[in-house]
C-alpha cells in the first residue's frame, strides 16, 4: 500500500481490463516519472473521450455527433447493413476495406445464461431500420462462437418475412495454419461453409 493519491491512482488503474495490481503499480510509477506535459495530455484525452464520445443513434457505433462518421458518409451503400456485436467489430471490419455498406451494433450477443435475451440488445432498433425497404441485404457478422451463431439464427428467423438477402461470413480454418491442428468444431463449420471452386 502507498500513500493517499498514489494508491488512489493505482486502484483506479487496476480497474482497467487486463491490468492487474502489479501492472497498475508499474503504470502509476511510469506516470510519476514521465514528463508532466505528457501526462496532462493523457488526462485531457481521457476527459475528452468521456465528454465527447457517445453512441450513434442510428447504428449504435461510437460517434462524436448524433450519428457516427460511417452513417454520415454519403458514399456508403444504404442497401446493405452488417450486424455486429460491438463497436470494436466495426473497427475490425473497416480495416479490411472490403465492406461499403453500413453497420448495426447490437451491444452484445444473446446469452440467456447471463440474462441477456433479444430485448436486451438493439434488435428493435434494427427492425425499425429495416422497415422502410431501403435495406435489401443483411450480413450477420456476430462472433463465430455458439452465442454469436444463435444470435444470427434468431435474427435470420426474425427478418425472414421481409424477404431480405441474409448472409453470414464464412467461418473456418485460420489462414496460415495446418488443417490437422483445427479443432472439430472449426473444421465442421469450415465444411458447412465450403464454396465451389469454379476453375
Amino acid at each position, binding site marked *: 500500500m502507498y500513500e493517499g493519491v498514489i494508491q488512489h491512482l493505482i486502484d483506479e488503474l487496476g480497474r482497467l481490463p*487486463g491490468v492487474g495490481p502489479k501492472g497498475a503499480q508499474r503504470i502509476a510509477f511510469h506516470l510519476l516519472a514521465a514528463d508532466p506535459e505528457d501526462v496532462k495530455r493523457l488526462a485531457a484525452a481521457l476527459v475528452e473521450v468521456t465528454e465527447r464520445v457517445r453512441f450513434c443513434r442510428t447504428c449504435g457505433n461510437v460517434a462524436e455527433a448524433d450519428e457516427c462518421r460511417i452513417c454520415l458518409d454519403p458514399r456508403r451503400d444504404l442497401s446493405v447493413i452488417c450486424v455486429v456485436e460491438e463497436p470494436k467489430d466495426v473497427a475490425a471490419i473497416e480495416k479490411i476495406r472490403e465492406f461499403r455498406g453500413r453497420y448495426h451494433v447490437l451491444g452484445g450477443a444473446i446469452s*440467456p*445464461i*447471463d440474462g441477456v*435475451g433479444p430485448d436486451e440488445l438493439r434488435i428493435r432498433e434494427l427492425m425499425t431500420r429495416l422497415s422502410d425497404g431501403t435495406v435489401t441485404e443483411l450480413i450477420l457478422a456476430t462472433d463465430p*462462437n*455458439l452465442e454469436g451463431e*444463435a444470435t444470427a*439464427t434468431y435474427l435470420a428467423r426474425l427478418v425472414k418475412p421481409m424477404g431480405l438477402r441474409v448472409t453470414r461470413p464464412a467461418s473456418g480454418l485460420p489462414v496460415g495454419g495446418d488443417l490437422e491442428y483445427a479443432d472439430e*468444431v472449426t473444421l465442421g463449420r469450415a465444411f458447412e461453409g465450403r464454396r465451389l471452386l469454379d476453375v
Partner: protein
Amino acid sequence: MPPRDGAGPRQRPRYFPLRRIRQLPQAVRDNGGVHQYRDDGVVLRTQKLGEADRIVTVLCRTTGRVRAVAKGVRRTKSRFGGRLEPFTHVDLMFHSGRSLDIITQAEVIRPYGAPLGGDYPRYTAGVAMLETAERLTPVDKEPALRQFLLLIGGLRALGEEEREPRLVLDAYLLRSLAVAGYAPALEECARCGAKSNGARLPAFAIAAGGMVCASCRPPGAASPSPQTVALMLALLQGDWEAAGRSERRHRVECSGLVAAYLQWHLEHSIRSLRHVERA
C-alpha cells in the same frame, strides 16, 4: 487464508525431516502445487478473463464441477479453437493452480453444441440445462457423477431432431431434481403420503413437494389437469412414448409447474428459463 508454516512445496528443500515429508501429500492437495489431473466433462459456461483468457466452468465425470482458466482461448490462433465452447464434451488435462486450475489440453469427445447454434428453441433449452446443471452442483470439485451422466443424456436427446426441445428440457429438469433429492411427489400426497389409488390428487403444492390430497391442500396451490400430471410422471420416468403423445396445452402447463418447482427448490432463479422458446 489460514497462516501456513513456511513456503509451498515448490520451495521446499529436498532434505526435509521425515515428519514433514509425511505431511506433503496433504499439502500438495491443499495449495495445488505442481499437480496435473485428467478428466472428461461438459463445458457449462465460459466467462471472459482479462485480454484473451476465459474462465471455463466444466461439469466433470470424476471431479465434479470445476472452474478453470483457459489461457489465450479468445485469440483466433488459440490452440484450443472451438473446443471449449459451452455444450462440448471434452477430454481435459488440468494443472492445479493456486485459486483456479488451468486447462492445459483439450480434445473434443462430442460437440453437443454443433446442432444447437442453428436452432434457436433447441439452443435456449440447452442453455437452461447447462445453467441448471451448474446450480445443482454448487460445491466446487464435489463428485456428481449422476448429474454428469444425466446432462450427457439430456444433451444427446436434445440433438435428436424428432424430440421437442422443451420436452427434453422438462424431462432433464425433473430428473436432475430427482437426483438432487427433490423429486416431486406425483403418485402420493407430498404431505401425508396418501396414495392416489386411481382417484386423482387435486392440487400441486410447490412448497409441499408435489401433488397433495384434498385435506392437505394449502391455499393457492395449482390445480393441474390429470394429463399434465401424467406427463410429468412420464418425463420423470423417461417414458418418451407416453410423453410424445401429450397435447400441447398439457406440455405448456407442465413446463410452468416444472419451472416454478425447480426455482423454488433451488432458491434461485434460472435466468435462461425466461428465454426458452417452444418450437
